[in-house]
């Protein structure tokens, strides 16, 4: 535990020192990055060590006399600590070259402060062992990430994003607090472990409330509205941390509540599976429809949260129906996906960050051909895309594979569990296919083909500190994909902390599965290698000519003729028409010599649309109607006093 707090101390120091050094830009960045990354490394080693230790560490401090700040590192906490420290470490490195405007020296320093606070609060939330501690650091986490989101507050979209994020995180916190309040109300103790004695109906209410609250942080549909706004608005290393790890804290919250309540109602699993399916499918459909590269990645995070939730739901269904194998597979699969998603999503955000920085545009349809100028970025982005599409032999597949296996175990169950397992499997399949379409679109349009605009022509990549983290992350994807054993053991450690009542979870049946994956992946790589050799052999001493792309007989092709991302996605989004209504803007062509015209379209998020018309407008209308109270004349004001007295006297 000391090492844990020490690492947090170092991280915070990395946030405060830059504030003092903000006059020396490079020195400030060096100090900040070094300190934060060193702290993260210490924390990472410590949490790996903690993860494989049998006993849990607990520590408690007195707080404001009556309360205590207690922290516990059990398997679950340690499991979530790993990605938090790891991704933050790489994001800190990445920021060194990413934040390179000396004119904004002070703002950069402030961003390091909030960055360090964000890391610290995430780790403290994950280790918090009572309500007060949890809420305290949860709110600090929201607040510090908010400041990071509004880093570029000059842009109006950023301000809108920051506002949405702020309001949603507050509402989410209120929901969580109400769940905690109920817990405290019935148990009378602030600790999580007191929750096990609640009556059953209270447990259900608590779980539902907590799910809604944590779900809004995790970006679960329909509480996700803030996410596609906030993640693109933040600087890219922050997006990487937010999308890579911060939203997982919401998942952690759900799991922690599940552990604390120690109640295995089938309802929990059902809620999670259904929410997961909706988030997964809609998330990826919207991702496909996006034209902004970071927004698209943000929606893809929603999709992956859906996959994780499906896994958790399968685990909970397995738990409630007394199917240990299904439970462990579901939980372990989704924990694995938590880890994997944090790796490839932060990789993709970092890649997108470089692309945006170098080309100055967010729009997918304005880019193209970057693979030639940004080789490393392109390669790593490609690997990340393969991984996030869940393709073997990369890591994205591993988690999904276990979730599938768990889901198939559920097919053998009765009625509702069967239907849900069936739907879970089908939706995982559909999500997989759509994700593939989505990421082929991004890779194909952004990195391949020819540049579609001037800005995409003069891109380069020279900053090593931005490339190294991406290379590290990209290397991890195939490594975990081929040798999932180690991370799977980590996930099992996490699952055993879930208090499922199975005692020690045996490793052997699961290790066999990971062995299978390794073996198959190895065979596959062997085949690929043979094919490469074959190809090399076939091309010996052959004439290779280079020329323009064949235009099917069209002799003057231009880059404008290329297929764009929007047209690529159109047929699929049309298939999901009811939820992906397009907003089109296209002034009609008129007159003999028509002026230049344009066409723009974007898919509107159904939740966002209905949030306005179903919730925001009625609320505003209601409060508008109340405004006559303060109409300026003093006479009714005195009447209010009389009225209050008269009404109250009735009750005397």
């Amino acid at each position: 535990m000391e090492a844990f707090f020490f690492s947090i101390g170092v991280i915070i120091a990395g946030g405060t020192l830059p504030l003092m050094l903000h006059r020396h830009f490079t020195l400030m960045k060096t100090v900040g990055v070094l300190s934060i990354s060193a702290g993260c490394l210490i924390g990472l080693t410590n949490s790996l060590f903690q993860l494989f230790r049998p006993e849990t560490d607990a520590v408690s401090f007195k707080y404001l006399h009556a309360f205590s700040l207690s922290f516990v590192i059990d398997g679950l906490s340690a499991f979530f600590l790993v990605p938090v420290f790891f991704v933050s470490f790489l994001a800190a490195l990445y920021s060194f070259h990413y934040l390179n405007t000396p004119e904004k020296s002070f703002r950069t320093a402030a961003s390091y402060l909030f960055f360090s606070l964000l890391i610290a609060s995430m780790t403290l939330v994950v280790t918090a062992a009572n309500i007060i501690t949890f809420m305290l650091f949860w709110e600090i986490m929201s607040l510090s990430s908010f400041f990071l989101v509004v880093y570029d507050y000059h842009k109006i979209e950023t301000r809108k994003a920051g506002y949405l994020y702020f309001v949603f995180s507050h509402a989410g916190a209120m929901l969580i607090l109400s769940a905690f309040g109920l817990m405290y109300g019935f148990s009378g103790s602030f600790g999580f472990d007191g929750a096990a004695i609640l009556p059953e109906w209270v447990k259900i209410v608590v779980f539902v409330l907590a799910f809604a609250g944590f779900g809004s942080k995790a970006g679960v549909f329909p509480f996700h509205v803030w996410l596609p706004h906030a993640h693109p608005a933040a600087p890219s290393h922050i997006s990487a941390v937010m999308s890579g790890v911060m939203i997982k804290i919401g998942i952690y919250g759900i799991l922690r509540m599940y552990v604390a309540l120690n109640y295995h109602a089938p309802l929990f699993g059902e809620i999670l599976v259904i929410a997961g399916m909706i988030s997964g499918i809609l998330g990826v459909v919207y991702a496909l429809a996006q034209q902004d590269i970071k927004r698209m990645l943000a929606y893809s995070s929603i999709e992956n949260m859906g996959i994780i939730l499906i896994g958790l739901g399968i685990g909970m269904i397995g738990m409630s129906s007394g199917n240990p194998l299904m439970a462990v597979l579901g939980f372990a699969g989704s924990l694995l996906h938590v880890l994997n998603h944090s790796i490839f999503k932060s990789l993709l955000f970092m890649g997108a960050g470089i692309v945006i920085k170098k080309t100055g545009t967010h729009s997918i349809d304005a880019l193209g051909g970057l693979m030639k100028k940004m080789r490393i970025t392109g390669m790593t982005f490609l690997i990340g895309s393969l991984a996030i599409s869940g393709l073997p032999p990369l890591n994205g597949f591993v988690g999904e594979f276990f979730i599938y296996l768990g889901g198939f175990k559920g097919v053998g169950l009765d009625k509702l569990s069967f239907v849900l397992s069936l739907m879970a499997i089908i939706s995982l399949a559909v999500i997989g296919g759509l994700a593939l379409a989505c990421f082929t679109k991004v890779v194909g349009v952004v990195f391949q083909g020819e540049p579609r605009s001037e800005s995409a022509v003069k891109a380069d990549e020279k900053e090593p500190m931005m490339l190294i983290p991406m290379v590290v992350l990209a290397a991890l994807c195939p490594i975990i994909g081929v040798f999932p054993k180690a991370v799977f053991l980590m996930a099992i450690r996490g699952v055993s902390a879930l208090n499922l009542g199975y005692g020690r979870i045996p490793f052997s049946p699961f290790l066999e599965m990971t062995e299978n994956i390794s073996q198959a992946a190895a065979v596959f790589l062997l085949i690929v290698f043979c094919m490469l050799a074959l190809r090399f052999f076939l091309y010996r001493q052959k004439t290779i000519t280079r020329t323009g792309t064949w235009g099917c007989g069209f002799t003057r092709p231009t880059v404008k003729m290329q297929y764009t991302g929007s047209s690529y996605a159109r047929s699929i989004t049309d298939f999901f028409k009811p939820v992906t209504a397009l907003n089109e803007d296209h002034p009609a062509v008129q007159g003999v010599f028509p002026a230049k015209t344009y066409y723009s379209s974007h898919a509107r998020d159904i939740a966002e649309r209905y949030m306005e018309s179903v919730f925001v407008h009625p609320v505003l209308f209601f409060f508008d109607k109340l405004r006559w109270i303060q109409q300026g004349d003093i006479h009714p004001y005195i009447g209010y006093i009389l009225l209050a007295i008269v009404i109250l006297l009735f009750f005397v």
Partner: protein
Amino acid sequence: MIESIILWILAICLSPFYAAVILKVKAFFGGKKGPPLLIHYFTLIKLMQKGSVYSNSTTFIFKMGPIASLSAALMALLFLPIAGRSPVLSFNGDVIFVLYVLGLGRFFTIAAAMDTASPFEGMGAAREAFFPIICEATMFMILILFFQLTGELTFAAYFTGIQTSGLWRVAGAPMLFVVMAFFIILLTENSRVPVDDPATHLELTMIHEVMVLDHSGPDFGLIELGAFIKLLFYSTFVARLICPIHAAHPFVNFVIFCAALSGVYVAIGVTESVMARFRMDRVSHFVLTSFALAFFATVITLEFVK
């Protein structure tokens, strides 16, 4: 094991031959003599001997495309019980692995197409990305059914030995739906009429062929080979399902299997001859039909089993 590997190699070698059966059937319906049954071998050899022309727009991904798609097809075949013999590789959940490996092949095919900056190839890529989504859903629906029937998640459990006839025994008539669903998947995944027309010359209406417009020489050869293997892979399902007979002697078995396979290819050829290809926006409905069939099969069977 050795036997399985021999069968695997045999299947690879036979795949171009069977693809030519389709051409022969189509020629028969067209009242023509048609190309020889070994035409695809000639084409492959010819292609392998040539050099290549690459577009200036392309990168290494363009060259990765053929390799990835061929490797994926080869990998998939490794898990497939050919002629009812146990496959080379098999483990719990290999069906999922295979489907996703095929996805990897598709990813690279699409990426290679996008690499050329050609509008037509982009169009094909978009379609290639779209239709298989529904196919995968159907495949998983069928898998759920098979899992319910056998309790296993391997191809070996479905198509080895007497297992297949076991499926028929338990599920009965609904199995016909599954066969039809499989056939539709086969047509879609392998870009056959009525989803796609490999013989057309109008790039705007093509899916798979248009994606490989810029590939040439050995690269194109590898793609072709991959396509043949993939076709064989799906045809094997259908063949085993319509002809689940398992004889004691492996050779007899193999002959029966080959005959069934020929039947499937003839059926493809007949379909191609008597049907016109769909309008692009109707294709998704057609593919959805397969999902509906699989869904009904599952629901009916489960009622039946209970």
